[in-house]
């Protein structure tokens, strides 16, 4: 029986056939294509992993530099502010503007591919409201 919060299984590698991504416990061929062991294990593009980890890696590097220059208090205070700003969200299935978080990160003064391509506000799929809320509250 899978744990309700998938987030705890971050370091495990999903094996094909055991955790299909689709509804009703089978592979959703329309949305995620056919399944194979190679597909599950390898990333589909060399940049996929690097892009997924880009923001966290950048933050880690900046915080570590800040800690070396100004001491431990500086990254701690900043991370506290990030945590506070990250909690200002709309309901789980609605798109949030993340304005405070963007201002803290400095994203309000720059434009990148994440603002132009695949705008989350215009995505065609939406999570099912009741399930999203239950998942967030840990009731699922």
């Amino acid at each position, binding site marked *: 029986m899978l744990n309700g919060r998938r987030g705890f299984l971050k370091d495990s590698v999903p094996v094909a056939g055991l955790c299909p991504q689709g509804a009703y416990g089978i592979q959703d061929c329309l949305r995620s294509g056919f399944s194979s062991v190679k597909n599950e294990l390898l990333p589909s593009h060399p940049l996929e992993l690097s892009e997924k980890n*880009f923001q966290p890696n950048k933050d880690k590097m900046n915080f570590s530099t800040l800690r070396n220059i100004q001491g431990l208090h500086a990254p701690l205070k900043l991370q506290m502010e990030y945590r506070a700003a990250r909690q200002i969200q709309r309901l*789980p299935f609605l798109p949030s503007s993340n304005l405070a978080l963007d201002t803290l990160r400095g994203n309000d003064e720059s*434009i990148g*591919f994440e603002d132009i391509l695949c705008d989350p506000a215009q995505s065609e*799929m939406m999570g099912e409201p009741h399930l999203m809320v239950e998942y967030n509250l840990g009731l699922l």
Partner: protein
Amino acid sequence: KMATLAVRQSPVGGFSFENCKRNAVLEGEANKVGYSLPAARKTGTTICGVVFKDGVILGADTRATEGMIVADKNCSKIHYISPNIYCCGAGTAADTEMTTQIISSNLELHALSTGRVPRVATANRMLKQMLFRYQGYIGAALVLGGVDCNGPHLYSIYPHGSTDKLPYVTMGSGSLAAMAVFEDRYKPDMEEEDAKRLVRDAIAAGIFNDLGSGSNIDLCVITKGKLDYIRPHDEANKKGVRTGDYKYKRGTTSVLTKSVTALNLEVVEETVLTMDTS
């Protein structure tokens, strides 16, 4: 086990790699049958830049190719970055276009934030950091030039993110032809007219010796107070004007004798068919 319906991660913007595997499979299938997927539009190109006494001059040809076909006979390869900085782009046309537009927007926001005229080194740093982040998958080879508070600067930026700061640079498929002209005739601190003639000749060398470059020559002269975007500076290849002719002139073959025989025809029947103009 309970069925978990659509519990999605919150969607993020940016590049989506969802279709990469499907595209790889499709390409494999197409290659098995003998077809190849359509090629992206490239600007197989000659672009170059030179630093002269008062500023920089950027030059570019105007042909965009799609495999072996000319997709655009008069495309503009010198892109605006800021009022004092322009950038020529070679490589995949969409990549150069979007990259220069994104950097132009970022530079404008940065200039508004600092309250100063943007520097060429800032644009260079932004471009190289973005291109390195995408490890060369964004195929944009750029020649960046401009004049700021520290004088005129010229950079060449490669798709993987390396940059060179030089007094004269060329990029694109015709870069070797253009570089040959530069290596022969470049002198430091040239006058504007000499520098314009040099850039024009370098691009013309690329146009006439490289299949990927053609059509006209665009120039952009950037000096401290003035900007000249000359498009086209020189129409090296006019469409419809043939350079040669297969017809022989009268008198090429000398006439020895001439006899004229009248052909007598008699009119048998004459009918007039009116056109249906209703």
